């Protein structure tokens, strides 16, 4: 493999770690916003335990001159809020890691000799201000001091964050940040820490957006006005996002009694002309599968956001995996057409969710947006989504008195009427039905109806998303991936610096793009990167092209791939 040497520069990985309930999320959200405000590219991803208090949760924040948006194993600066943080991240701490911590709070007998510690008196400063709880904000101040961000930017962000609280609380938080800021400046002055990252003023015009928010905003831009769901990590954020904006945007948001009710409600809403969705994870989706089949039979659209987490059963509720592709592919009894989208980037989560509603409406099929914990939970700065060119399609048909819901048509799509719009009657039936929607056991008609429903697969073939090939048109090695691993694989390839290897990323996993065989045949060697144990996408490719992928890089520990491990595995596998 032809390769240039490459080192990480202009990119620092800061990891914050502490027990649940100690405000890690506050630190993270405040810090990322200050950094972005100051013009730094920011990427953040968390890993946390399925508990409300205690344990060890961590957030990785990558700050960079050129934008990076992927999880790395490397920790440059670790802010440890308790001693368990060190134990929790032990495997990731290297001799280059600087651990920024208030060692006095770790208690006597803590052996710090194995690592590079920089002592910072977070707790003392916080106590002096009046409450030990402020030590989080002191740590935020310290990082901003290390970056040399203008102090005004820091204090104004802190004031804004706590603006709704009392004047005293705002003042004390600002003091805590200022105290930390001074520590940071001193650390830089003394040469204990140095950072070389250039801010970029164009970042200020960008927005920090998470996968969850992108799906929620995309749904709203796609005309979604109805969501019924049952809470399940990591999908609940979308429900909460829609609920937060329901009054302003006139959305129906309902927490259903179970996932079965949720999907049946959303299908009912589409039947009456709304644009409905559900958001769920594997276990909930498993309960919805009869509803997916119902959508297929009724030809009443539905949009499902399926945010994957590791299974089987309850699995690891707060971790990530790409293990439900086959569930999404085969969910529901009987044979019918579906579309499965798998956004690779936060901005794509916005645009694909938006388009999911048009696709569902146009083809009258279930559309599944397959994300995962990693994608919905991570966030980074992106250009603000622009709705100027977003067109909302409307496929609702005004009925005439002789309207038949399941008119047999050449492309399989029958004009979809809704009750109360026109003089016709809209009859939909989960039993096999005739063109008017009435139950039938005419077996010739049954065959015609199956064929009609399946013809929609041909109709939608022109709209299958082209997989993204990067960076070379001609390649010797092809690295295939789908969904949330986009930036990880891309950065791994960039790190390896190969001039003969390209990435082929799929944002639509089903129907599989017809050019797939062509892409694979062009390569001397193919490798797939998937966050599951059995290579589910690999199997899908085999099924549709007959082609075997040469190598698999699989991960199913519950953590996302890191750039390093993908790079290392590729390095071993590629010639």
């Amino acid at each position, binding site marked *: 493999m032809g390769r240039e040497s490459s080192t990480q520069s202009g990119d620092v990985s800061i990891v914050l770690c502490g027990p649940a309930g100690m405000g890690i999320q506050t630190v993270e959200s405040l810090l990322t916003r200050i950094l972005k405000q100051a013009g730094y590219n920011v990427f953040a991803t968390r890993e946390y335990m399925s508990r409300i208090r205690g344990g060890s949760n961590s957030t990785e924040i990558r700050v960079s001159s050129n934008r990076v948006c992927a999880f790395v194993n490397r920790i440059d600066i670790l802010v440890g809020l308790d001693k368990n943080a060190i134990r929790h991240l032990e495997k990731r701490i290297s001799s280059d890691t600087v651990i920024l911590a208030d060692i006095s709070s770790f208690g006597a007998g803590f052996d710090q000799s194995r690592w590079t510690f920089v002592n910072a008196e977070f707790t003392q400063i916080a106590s002096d201000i009046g409450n030990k709880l402020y030590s989080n904000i002191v740590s935020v101040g310290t990082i901003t001091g290390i970056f040399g961000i203008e102090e005004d930017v820091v204090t104004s962000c802190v004031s804004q964050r706590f603006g709704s609280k009392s004047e005293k609380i705002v003042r004390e938080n600002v003091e805590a940040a200022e105290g930390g800021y001074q520590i940071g400046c001193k650390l830089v002055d003394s040469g204990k820490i140095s950072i070389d990252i250039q801010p970029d003023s164009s970042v200020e015009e960008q*927005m920090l957006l998470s996968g969850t*928010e992108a799906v929620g905003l995309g749904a*709203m831009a796609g005309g979604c*006005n109805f969501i019924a769901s049952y809470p399940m990590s990591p999908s609940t954020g979308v429900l909460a996002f829609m609920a937060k904006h329901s009054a302003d945007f006139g959305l*129906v948001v309902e927490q259903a009694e179970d996932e079965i009710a949720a999907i049946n409600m959303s*299908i009912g809403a589409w039947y*009456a002309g709304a644009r*409905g969705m559900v958001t769920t994870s594997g276990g909930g989706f498993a309960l919805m599968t009869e509803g997916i089949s119902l959508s297929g039979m009724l030809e009443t659209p539905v949009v499902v956001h399926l945010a994957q987490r590791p299974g089987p059963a309850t699995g690891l509720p707060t971790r990530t995996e790409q293990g439900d592709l086959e569930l999404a592919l085969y969910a529901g009894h009987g044979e019918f057409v579906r579309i499965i989208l798998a956004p690779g980037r936060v901005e794509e989560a916005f645009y694909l969710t938006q388009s999911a509603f048009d696709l569902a409406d146009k083809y009258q099929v279930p559309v599944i947006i397959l994300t995962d914990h990693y994608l919905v939970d991570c966030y980074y700065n992106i250009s603000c989504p622009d709705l100027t060119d977003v067109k909302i399609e409307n496929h609702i048909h005004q009925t005439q008195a002789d309207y038949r819901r399941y008119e047999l048509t050449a492309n399989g799509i029958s004009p979809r009427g809704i009750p109360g719009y026109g003089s016709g009657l809209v009859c939909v039936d*989960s039993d096999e039905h005739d063109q008017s929607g009435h*139950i039938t056991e005419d077996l010739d008609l049954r065959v015609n109806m199956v064929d009609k429903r399946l013809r929609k697969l041909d109709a939608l073939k022109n709209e299958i998303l082209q997989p993204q090939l990067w960076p070379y048109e001609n390649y010797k090695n092809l690295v295939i991936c789908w969904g949330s691993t986009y930036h990880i694989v891309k950065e791994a390839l960039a790190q390896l610096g190969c001039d003969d290897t390209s990435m082929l990323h799929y944002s639509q996993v089903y129907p599989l793009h017809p050019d797939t065989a062509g892409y694979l045949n062009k390569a001397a060697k193919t490798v797939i990167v998937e966050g599951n144990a059995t290579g589910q996408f690999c199997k899908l490719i085999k099924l549709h092209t007959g082609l075997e992928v040469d190598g698999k890089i699989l991960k199913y520990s519950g953590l996302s791939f890191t750039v390093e491990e993908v790079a290392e595995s590729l390095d071993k596998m590629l010639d």
Partner: protein
Amino acid sequence: MDSQNFDMGDIDIAWCPGCGDFAILKILKQALAALEIAPQELVVVSGIGQAAKIPQYLKCNYFNGLHGRALPPATAIKAANPALTVIAESGDGDMYGEGGNHFIHTIRRNPDLTNIVHNNMVYGLTKGQASPTSQRDFKTPVQVHGVCLEPFNPLAAAIALDASFVARAFAGDAEQTVEIFNKAITHKGYSLVDVLQPCVSYNKINTYQWFKANTYYLDETYEPTDRTKAFEKACQTDKLALGVFYMSPEKATFEENLVAYRKDKSPLWQRQPNKEKIQNLIESIKNM
């Protein structure tokens, strides 16, 4: 309006001769005609089973969905377009067994719809197994030693949940049942009508004669706003009372509680996403 407006003409009906479903269909047409509800403004949502075939034989919009799942889409249809008249209709196995959880939570939600349950105390379409309302000791090819589960009491459950409107009717009495259907459909909020109905093929115990001998109508002095009294009546199972058992104090319907209709009364299908507003939201998230 003439009830013939709801006739489907010469169609093949899959019910057994003498089935109580025929009577309920006729009663429903009469009630709808009396209320002047146009077929275009009516949506009947049903699950699966012999009773759930009712919309197939009625001129109306319908959503014949999954077994046990009539109430969630019915709730959503009403929420998406509150101007529609929505009736969710199925049998006792569908509504009280497979769909039991939805029965509970739909009552809590209180959408303005009418829930008609054909209660013949047996499974018909699957050929004669026990239903949630089968009486104790009822023998079937599956419950060979007789049913030993406590029969589900839908009226008592609904009253316990403070359902907006709770009634029981008998398919063998068209006149009174039309009256009860009229009240249920015009009532604002969730209305339950449990309709006792013989199954001529699989229930040889609870026959027309049995129902006639074991039911009576609540008299004019009965006050359906007294919840305790209503619960007491519902718990009485030696003789089954017929009529309107309970009407809760007026409460907001599910649709009335939806913030989606606070500023805009139009049904959801008439709404387009407001791109400018979404762009403003994006801007506000940017500045957060």
